[in-house]
């Protein structure tokens, strides 16, 4: 079994916006990709929220706004053929794995042209071809599935890595312990990425988890890291190291990415369990703004680059909404279709 070796630590020198040399290793195209993905996630969700408030969609919407750097940094380090499992808060993972926003929006609108033909909704988007094995309405459930995907890769020797995204709320589940332990015992090519956004509904992560989640790496004999999840460069570097390690056949890694959801648990959440100061403090560490500041300081991309990306995103978003609204509703003859392979 692998010896425990931290792949990254907190409290890097160099201050909040310093990339610690990671930015310099990224190409301009990679920087553009990172910016584009983070902005897409944010604009997609802001737009979805407007549509929800205008009663154009229903159900539960869980926003990832504020957490964009984790999905983006991790997926930036994945190869196209690699797999992820996602959560109820899955829009960010989906977009970072390359999903089309028009098909996502149509799914939220419950239309035939959506990723799942309207059968899944916001909480259940999958794009198997892109390696997104699916968002999940059951907290923790993606973790053993990721372990299974990694086992499949090991048996098939396909060289792929699977990332399981999950929240701090999944830390207490049996699925976490079983899934991570099995992956460790079998030395599987998996990376377990805990998005610790401090809360699961109104429950604080420290209330729900008896000890910090990253402490569990040693318990399973695997490396673990606790990182600033709003620092895209730290996320990328840590994920890259863990993914490379997994691909080399050296087994799984546990990464705890500290971040924050700016919005409520769902679009409807108006509960009072966080202070205004706490929210403001985290909003001031917005991962997109930090990225832009760091890039500006490095003088790598210029204003035109950002504007061109933003302009294209607005067009894509407009198209996504128009596409969703113009798409037909599913008809009842499909209700019992796709329950089984026919």
């Amino acid at each position, binding site marked *: 079994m692998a010896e425990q070796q931290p792949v990254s630590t907190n409290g890097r020198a160099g201050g909040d916006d310093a990339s610690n040399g990671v930015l310099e290793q990224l190409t301009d195209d990679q920087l553009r990709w990172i910016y584009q993905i983070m902005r897409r996630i944010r604009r997609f969700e802001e737009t979805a929220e407007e549509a929800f408030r205008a009663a154009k969609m229903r159900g539960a919407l869980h926003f990832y706004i504020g957490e964009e750097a984790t999905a983006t940094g991790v997926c930036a380090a994945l190869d196209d053929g690699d797999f992820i499992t996602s959560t109820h808060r899955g829009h960010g993972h989906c977009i970072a794995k390359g999903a089309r926003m028009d098909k996502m929006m149509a799914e939220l609108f419950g239309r035939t042209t959506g990723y799942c033909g309207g059968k*899944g909704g916001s909480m259940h988007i999958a794009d198997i071809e892109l390696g997104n094995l699916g968002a999940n*309405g059951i907290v923790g459930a993606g973790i053993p599935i990721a372990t299974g995907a990694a086992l499949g890769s090991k048996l098939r020797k396909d060289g792929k890595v699977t990332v399981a995204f999950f929240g701090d709320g999944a830390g207490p589940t049996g699925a976490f312990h079983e899934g991570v332990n099995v992956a460790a015992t079998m030395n599987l090519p998996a990376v377990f990425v805990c998005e610790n956004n401090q809360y699961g509904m109104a429950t604080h992560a420290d209330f729900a988890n008896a000890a910090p989640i990253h402490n569990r790496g040693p318990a399973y004999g695997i490396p673990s890291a606790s990182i600033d999840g709003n620092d895209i460069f730290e996320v990328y570097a840590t994920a890259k190291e863990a993914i490379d390690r997994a691909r080399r056949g050296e087994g799984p890694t546990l990464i705890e990415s500290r971040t924050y959801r700016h919005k409520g648990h769902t679009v409807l959440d108006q509960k009072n369990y966080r202070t205004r100061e706490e929210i403001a403090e985290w909003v001031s560490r917005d991962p997109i703004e930090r990225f832009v500041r760091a890039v500006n300081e490095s003088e790598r991309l210029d204003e035109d680059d950002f504007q061109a990306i933003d302009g294209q995103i607005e067009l894509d978003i407009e198209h996504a909404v128009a596409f969703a609204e113009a798409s037909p509703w*599913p008809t*009842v003859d499909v*209700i019992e279709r796709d329950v089984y392979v026919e």
Partner: protein
Amino acid sequence: MAVTTPQAPETATREIFMSEALREAIDEEMTRDATVFVVGEEVGVWGGAYAVTQGLLEKWGPDRIVDTPIAEAAIAGLGIGAALTGSRPIAEFMYSDFMGIAMDQIVNQAAKNRYMFGGKAKLPLTYRAPFGAGTGNAAQHTQSLEAWFVHVPGLKVITASTPYDAKGLLKSAIREDNVVIMFEHKAIYAMRGHVPEGEYLVPIGVADVKREGDDVSVITYARQTHHALEAAEQLAAEGISVEVVDIRSLYPLDTDTVLRSVRKTHRAVVLYEAVRFGGFGAEIASQIQELAFDDLDAPVLRVGAAHAPVPFSEPLEQASFPDTAQVVEAIRQSLQGVY
């Protein structure tokens, strides 16, 4: 849609939501018995995903309203262990769908403990769980899984269609020395109904005729009771008299009340929101034909949900489980004997 339950007295009642009625039941039983406590996810600070335990943490404190991490197997087990050792827990699953994670604790542990150990143990334990579709919450938050549990000896299973029944049944469940699972339909938490000011119980194992009629019996439970009542109202305009039996308790089942109704009307439609195939309605239909075959003028019909997970998209979801129109249609079929 407010429904006055026949037993509800005319005087000294108020109209309250089903969620409030359930909260009163919990609060009153906590007052009555210091060993009663609530345990589950988000039951405290959040006040329960459907607001049933709203305000109870403030009133009773964290020793009686116990918030847990996301750990359904543990929640089920906490209930068992505490019940075995002298407490009277009310353990909440945020959605009945999540009981899948707790199945070993519920099925292999809670249900069998007393029997396996030769009748030594006693489990005064209530599990509560929201169920049912119609909320746009998609496949993993909308199921009606009651048939899983009625199949397991050692569990009692109840569900209410009105605030009156909800309060009275839950109070009875909490006082039971057996494991009782109360399924609460999400779509009617915000339904209002008359509930008396004073103390009352609704016994477990007793069905309730929610509307009397002579031509067809609709045997149902939970939210579907309202579809049955709406169908009965529509058909009354045509001179068709429909009796609606709300069984309230799936196990033990009040077969007598069901049979009495069918022997009067000679026709039965069994209505439930779970997947029709293999659902609890099959048990009711089977009992009717076994015990009242000679009284029947038509085959017993079942109305249930499609053979599919609950789809997200509104037109699909709404069409995937029975609505009033489907109940009307089934009643007509039963009357015509055309299938």
